[in-house]
């Protein structure tokens, strides 16, 4: 089993921007993403997820270092100030490097 290092970028944000955000992720070079519904609490208060106005989504993108950096920069510019959003990175190992 050959292993390859990639970055796992996790974004938690408002569900209201899901379709806009996924379009942007495409444009910024992500080859894929995985979304789960979430709720939570942060600097912008509690988002209970029981109503369309307060749902979160949790997006994961596996990509190479450069793309991760690129996406994070764009998110900071275009979204960070005005939306409930957090973002974190970590290292993961994958098996089929051509996919990511």
């Amino acid at each position, binding site marked *: 089993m050959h292993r390859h290092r990639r970055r796992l970028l996790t974004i938690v944000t408002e569900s*209201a*921007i899901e379709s806009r955000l996924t379009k942007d992720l495409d444009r910024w070079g992500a080859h894929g993403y995985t979304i789960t519904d979430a709720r939570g609490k942060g600097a*912008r*208060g509690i988002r209970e997820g*029981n*109503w*369309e*106005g*307060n749902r979160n989504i949790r997006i994961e993108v596996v990509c190479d270092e450069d793309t991760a950096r690129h996406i994070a920069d764009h998110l900071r510019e275009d979204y960070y100030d*005005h939306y409930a959003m957090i973002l974190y990175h970590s290292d993961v190992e994958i098996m089929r490097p051509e996919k990511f």
Partner: protein
Amino acid sequence: MLDPVVLFFLLGVTAGVLKSELRLPVQVYELLSILLLLAIGMKGGIELARQPFFELVPQMLAVIALGFVLPFLVYPILMGPGRMPRADAASIAAHYGSVSVGTFAVVVAYLAARDIAYEAYMPLFVVLLEVPAILVGIAMAKGLRGTTGWKASTHEVLLGKSIVLLVGGLLIGWLVGEEGIKPLEPLFFHPFQGLLALFLLEMGLVTASHLGSLRRYGLFLLAFGVVTPIVFATIGVVLGWLLGLSMGGAVVLATLAASASYIAVPAAMRISVPEANPALSLAASLGVTFPFNVILGIPLYHALSEQFYRYTGAS
């Protein structure tokens, strides 16, 4: 006497304030809002099928104009005495210029319970009032020149969930007519009030969670959220009378004017005017105006309309 649907709202608020474990899954909320929007749309469509469309054109134009005008009445107040940043003032103006479908459903239930007639094509006005204020709000926040995103914004607004379902229902009702819609009644029309009751239970829970942020934003929002609907309702009554609506129709138009959006407009503002703080506008529209309208406002607008129509000798 309070309508049972209003009691469900109060049950939700109470459960929320007492921090009960009661939760409605968001999927139930979505199912309820889909059913209510389609039902309201279809009811309107059936009525449209009944009368020559062109006769309604003058009323329709007047209602559209109302949707464009209302935001301008509050924007200066929000900027001036309210001391709000431009984006927030614009966003709140859009919320109040647009309508709340939930409040519309409550006034319909209110009139039905009291056997008061009204023009049954009113759902058409819901559709017509939903959009203009959003466009005005975006323009207020961004200026007309910042054309970037205008097309995208309009696309997003027109294809938002509530517009699609209302307009879709309207068209289906219109094409199919009263007879054709019969087989759908047991799901969409018969349980309408029950669905509305559950929906209000959920909105009560959501409202409770906005009361906190209300405390943070203070007295201005509270006063604004009560006075605005009364003023707008008065405008609605007078306009209804000018348009030759029945007394009941004027109550509905007044309630529409008085209501503030908490579904379509927040979604649109989140996308098009992200710098506006959604907690602020929701605290006003959901935390103050919605409960006010549902509990006190509608009976008040009813009394108002009755007085006015009696005084002017109409209907």
